[in-house]
Each structure stands twice: as C-alpha cells, then as structure tokens.
C-alpha cells in the first residue's frame, strides 16, 4: 500500500515540479499562456484538464499492458492514443451535454481534451515505462502542472500589467514570452542540469 502511494506521489511530483510539463517540456504552453489571461475560466478548464490527463493516461497504460498492444510498433501506439483520446472526449461530451451543462463548460471540454499536454502524457508514460500507478500519478501531476503553470503565468501577467517601465516594444506578448522563459529557467534548475555551457 505504501509503495502504491510512493509511486503515485513520486510520479505526480515528477510531472508537476521536477519535469514540469509546461515549463521544461513546453507541452500545452499555448493553452497555459492563453488561459492565464482569462483567470475566470480557469476552474472548469483545470478540472477537465486533470480529468483528461489522468483518465487518458490510465486507459492507455492499461491497454499497453495487454500482450496484443504491447507487441505493436510505435506508430500503432500513436493510433491507439489518438483513438482513446477521441473516444474519451465523445463520452465526456455525452455526459456533459446530458447534464445540460452551460455552453461555456461544453467549450472547455474541447479545449481541455485536444491539446498537446493531454496527448503527451500517454506518450511519456510509454517512453518512460511507467507502471499503472505511475501512469495515474503522471496524469494527475500533468493536470496539476497545468494549473500551477497557469497560476504562475497569471501572477506574472498581473505584475507585467502594473509595470510601466517595460519598453514599449516589449509590452504585451514579448514580455509574456520572456517571463515564461524565466519561469522555465527556474524549473529547469530543478532537473539538476547544468544548462549554460
């Protein structure tokens, strides 16, 4: 039991902090930056992102454990991951529409499902050879990593908005990119790599 939680926690921590998917991998960076400019929409999107990363990760890992799938070439794994994500989206959509969710929520489902972050999780699990518990952990960690990234970028955007000393040409998206680069540098330090030279 303790190993279960240890595996789960370490995989989640790895995906969230040590190898933050957004800052050290760049996965889902566009969505994270765009979403950080709209903090009002963060809550439903975060829920859906965590849901999709976790469930896709788990289903794909379970399928990979079967002898039929595990023997396939990498290209067929891609097809399976795509298929799982599409089917999961459809099922989620049916449930959400069944509950007569507001349009805004329905839209979030699409944004949350089809982005590079969600799709990258099963690929990383496959490459890293995570077990099922690790896959659950990395799914949850990826979702939390997204929320963390959005919150950090959102805080930065607020500071950038208040900062009147930013040069005119750097105001706006240039400043945002550079701010994200600095955050990325911070997270890179957690990997322990010597990054300059």
């Amino acid at each position, binding site marked *: 039991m303790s190993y279960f939680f240890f595996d789960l926690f370490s995989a989640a921590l790895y995906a969230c902090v040590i190898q933050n998917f957004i*800052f050290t*991998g*760049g*996965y*889902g*960076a*566009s*969505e994270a*930056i*765009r979403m950080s*400019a*709209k*903090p009002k929409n963060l809550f439903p999107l975060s829920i859906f992102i965590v849901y999709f990363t976790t469930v896709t990760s788990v289903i794909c890992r379970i399928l990979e454990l079967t002898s039929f799938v595990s023997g396939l070439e*990498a*290209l067929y794994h*891609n*097809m399976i*991951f*795509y298929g799982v*994500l*599409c089917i999961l*989206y459809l099922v989620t*959509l049916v449930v959400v529409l069944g509950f007569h969710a507001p349009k*805004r929520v*329905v*839209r979030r*489902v*699409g*944004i949350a*499902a*089809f*982005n*590079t972050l969600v*799709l*990258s999780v099963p*690929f990383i699990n496959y*490459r890293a050879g995570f077990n099922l518990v690790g896959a659950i952990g990395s799914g949850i960690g990826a979702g939390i990593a997204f929320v963390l990234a959005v919150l950090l970028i959102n805080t930065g*955007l*607020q500071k950038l*908005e*208040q900062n*009147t000393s*930013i040069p*005119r*040409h*750097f105001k*706006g*998206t*240039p400043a*945002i*990119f*550079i701010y994200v*680069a*600095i955050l*990325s*540098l911070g997270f*890179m330090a957690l990997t322990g790599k010597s*990054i*300059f*030279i």
Partner: protein
Amino acid sequence: MNNSSFGETFRRGIITNNPLLFQIMGVCPVVAIALSVKTAAVVAVINALELIIIELLSCLLFKKLKRHFRVLIYAVLGFAINLPLLAAISRHLPDLTESIGIFLPLLAVNSVIAVKCETFAVKNTVRDTVFDSIATAIGYGIVTVAVGAAREALGSGTIFGKPIGLPYTAEAFLAPLGGFLILGFFAAIVKGLTAKKYSEEVNASMLDTSQIRMLHIKHLKQLIDESGDDDIFFDDSVLNDLEPKQSIFRRKQKTVAPEQTIVIPEEIQSFSEPEEKEEEKTVGYQPFADLLKTLEKHEPEIVVEATEPEPDPLELNEEWEVRDEELLESVEETEKASDEQQDGGDGQ
C-alpha cells in the same frame, strides 16, 4: 478578393497577426522541437499541410456542424494527416524521428489548426479561407524556422549542421526556455519594426489581457476607496483605454456653482421659434402680435432654479459607486461577449 485584400491577408497572417508571435498559438512544437533549421522546417511543413487541408475542409463541409463536434473532427483529421507523414518520416528519416521524439505526433492537436478553423474557416468563403490558411502557415513557418536557426546557432554553434565558429555555445537555448526567450525577442523585434505603420493592428492581435487589466483596476479602486483621501479619485475613462503610462489618478475638480436659469412657459417658447418661414410670409406680423398677447396673459414667470450641474465624469460624488459598478458591469458584459467570440478562438 481583390489584390489589396489579398496582400492584406498575407501581411496579417505573416506579420501583424502572426499566430506564433502575437496570438500565442502552436507554441509547444516550436519551443520543444525547433532546435535546428532542419527540425524546424519539418515542423513548419507538417503544420502547413495540416492547417491548409483541415481549414479548407472545415470551410467546405463542417460549417453546419455543432462546434463541439467540429473540434473532434479537427483532431481526427489532424491524426489522419499526421499518421502517414509519421510513417514516411520514420522510414526515410529515422534520425529525425529519434531526435524529435514524441513531438511530431503531437502536431495533430496543434492549437493553430483548431483556432484558425473556428475563428476563420467556418465563417468565411473558400477563397478567403485558402488565402488565410496559406498566409498563416507561411507566418508560422517563417517564425519556426527562424527560431530553429537561432537556437541551432546559439545552442549548438552550427547552421544547417555546419559550424559557424562561435567561441561559446549555450545549451540552454536547446531547452524550451531558449525557445520562449527567442520567441519573446522576435516578437519584440517584429513589433518594433511594424510600430510605425501597423502598431494598432499588432496591438489588437495580441493576447487579450483585459481580464487581468480589470483585476488590476479593481484592485486600484479598492485601494483608493480604502485610503479615504477625498482628493484622489478614480478616472472612469481608463476603463475604455488604459495605456501603460497613463495615470489613472486625477485631482478632484472644484464643484461647479449652480447656474441661474429662467424658465420660459412652453407657449412662449413655441412662439419664439417660428418653424417655417413660409407661414411668416402668409401671416405677416401675426405671430409677433400673438406673442405679445400671450405675454400679457402670462406674466413671465421667472424662476431661479438651482439646477444640478452636468454630471462631471471627473468628479467624485455620492453616485460614484453606483456609476462605477454599472460601468464595471457593462465592461464585464462586453468582455464576456468578446470572450465568447475569442473562445471560438481559443480554439474549441
């Protein structure tokens, strides 16, 4: 589409509305795999193929479908185009497949595709869509290759795999942080170069941070309210257009003294303004005589009325909070509307 709008579409797609530099779409493949000119070119080509085909198909076939189904179709089409390309690349360029890793399959869900399809293709004609998709693909591709070249030069000390003789290289440029950094500087350079002619267009295309701005404004207003200083108040006009260096504080203006006005009876008012000259011609001096009679009947009632001065937008008064709330609400409503538009925009 005439020549000027054709050129305009290309200018927007490549420069002022660049999907990568100003709209922050499709960042992941660029920061993750555009590490050299070669890999960047592969990303640019695959993205261009997917973007043009899917945008065209969505314009031709999916306009009547519901949005949440269209999103699924974009992804499925992305996968359908991506898979054969992946197979071809893995056969003919195995080294590239190894170096790019898992990122090529992820191009199928590149946000540029969904956003452009939702914001442009399903709302425009086939011809416009084709031009837009080509322009966007070129704009995206140019920036991707430029970022790849810069990262290859600074991170590996080579261009097209050939050494360029740099004394030092910084491997950090090969990490995503290098990608973000170079994108930031490229965006600033393009913004600076286009500042004279197209600054408004560029500013309009940039990431919408109005929600952040509103939070900042509310916070400032709260600080002003809490300060209890009557001499400082909040200027509504900043809600419309908040420039970075524009001060949002104003000195309170002195209250305007109530004006004395004379209230003239309505009948006299109507007489005093003979509307049609033709009537004057036929009646002669009659209107003037009638006016005199009316004046005799009605002693001119002179009332000194302390009318309220015109509400001064710069003045802090008791109605301030009510007006401010209304204004904030209206701005929020506008935001919501634009938000919904852009959510189209967000892609899905």
